[in-house]
């Protein structure tokens, strides 16, 4: 936990430093008053001070006892939990790419089936019904009833 917080705060410090550099490329003031870089510059500066203070504060926190359980120290998921999280993230990324080419309906059909299987469902007929309802059914509901445009892909499906 402590190590994770240090890394996260370090990343935020880097983000603030980057924002400071970028804001300096914009004008801080002009003849009308504060320019586009003014507010982000001061924010980034405050962010740098805060992240440094937080880094020091976390650094001074007591280190976890050697007999602390792995669960207390571990940040990232592991075992089945990690696989389930990876399945969600991976399938979400895949469906985002796929929607551009094959459209919402086909991409969601595969996504729904793959996700419920990855999360432990094995009854094929329930998976099939859910996948169809969650893709073609949802598409019909949103485009026809709710006037929400959804991607149709390169084949117009």
């Amino acid at each position, binding site marked *: 936990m402590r190590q994770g917080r240090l890394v*996260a705060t370090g990343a935020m410090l880097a*983000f*603030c430093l980057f924002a400071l550099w970028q804001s300096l490329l914009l004008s801080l003031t002009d003849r009308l008053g504060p320019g586009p870089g003014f507010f982000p510059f001061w*924010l980034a500066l405050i*962010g740098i001070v805060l992240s440094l203070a*937080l880094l020091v504060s976390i650094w001074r926190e007591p280190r976890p006892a050697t007999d602390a359980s792995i669960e207390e120290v571990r940040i990232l998921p592991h075992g089945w939990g990690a696989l*389930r*999280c990876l399945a969600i993230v991976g399938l979400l990324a895949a469906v985002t790419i796929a929607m551009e080419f094959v459209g919402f309906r086909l991409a969601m059909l595969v996504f729904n089936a793959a996700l419920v299987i990855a999360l432990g469902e094995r009854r094929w007929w329930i998976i099939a019904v859910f996948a169809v309802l969650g893709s073609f059914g949802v598409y019909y509901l949103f485009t026809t009833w709710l006037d929400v445009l*959804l991607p149709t892909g390169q084949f117009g499906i």
Partner: protein
Amino acid sequence: MEALGHLLQGFAAALTPGYLLYAFVGCMLGTLIGVLPGLGPAAGTAILIPLTFSLDATGAIIMLCAIYYGAMYGGTITSVLINVPGEAASVVTCIDGHQMAKQGRAGSALGIAAIGSFVGGTLATVALVAVAMPLASLALKFGPAEFFALMVAGLCLVVGLAGNNMMAALLMTVIGLLFAMIGVDPVRGAPRFTFGVEELYDGIGFVPVVMGLFGVAELLLAAEKRQTHMVEAELKSWMPTRQECRQSVGAIGRGTVVGFVLGLIPGVGAIVPTFMAYVLEKRVSKTPERFGKGAIEGVASAETANNAYANASMVPLLALGIPSSPTIAVLMGAFIVNGITPGPFLFKEQPALVWTVIASFFVGNALLLILNLPLVGLWAKLLKIPFSYMCAGVLIFCVIGAYGLKQSLFDVWVMLGFGILGYLLRKLDFPIAPAILALILGPMMERSLRTTLEISGGSFAIFLDRPVALALLAIPVIVIGFLLFKPRSLAPLRESDIE
């Protein structure tokens, strides 16, 4: 009197079949979201935003508000039946509510919770009617300096009261504000931090961000725990006895006052009023030893305070344009998506909309009472939905919500990125609420500050010449100073404190 006239006109609109239907659907969906453990009101409201894309602004806001207070009530059902709070504010309800369920009095607990929620919500809305307009009229006299100070005060109160780690909460606020800087400069129109990416010219979309931080992150956290589904609970009747009603009258009254007063303060969070009302009830009770063993006053006070808080937290949003919690920030985002800027001008420029929405609060509270008493058994059955289907269903809504607003797949990537970020930040105990509020208030804060400095010729001394702005800026200094150097005994309230 003027407010009453507006309110009556609001009722005339809110009671039309279309808006009644939106309130009804919102209450149903909100309760459903509240019932499902892991999906709180903020996540629920965020993922259901796409349902309102095709509605007119008033209808969309009515439905989203109904989802919000529906979700606040829905969490009660799981708290009572299976000792799992559907959302954080229902944690206190578990204490006596589940004990009552174990004694075969689940119906009484749920019944009194529905009645208390109705009374608390309705009375808080009455108070909202009385308070909101004068507060908005006062705020109309504010200049950009006062607005900037007000937003700083609101953000700092949220930082001070919502985060367990003050420094981390402040840093998260700054990070949220920096993300809000992406896009076209609101004053001069110059692009900032866009790196030539066309999609970033409009800034980072609020809807994909909240869907990621709340929806996707919640699912990742649940997936990691290998959550399957909950057990079914038995439910015999849904009405409290006459004696139980008599016992609860005082608790409902006190819960309403506590919930309303705390709802006016940005950053308090829903769990604090429920806890305070519960503690107050235990203090005034002649038989405090019954608390924790199934005292109906415990359920009545917490649930009443919860809904009174939910309705009262609309006051700072509608009158001042300050969201007091992440869920209210999501609602504010929905207002903005629909072309409405909450704040004092709303009462002046769009009175029909704002009073229709306020009238719909009364209608929604009544609908919740009518719906929830007989449908408790049905809601309880929802707990049997396996996690795999719930996860896939929520993700479908997240994808549609992120994509649907601008028809941009880039926003789906933004949602995914913020989902992973939200998951990691939650695991590392970084508070997300301040970043969300900062993201939505960022552009307004910048505009106010820069206009103020343009008026003063770049001098910050203008804040010293404006007593209201100075007083408002003193609030965060005092709050943060107090919290940084507070005694250990006054540590912020956490869920674990109640357990």
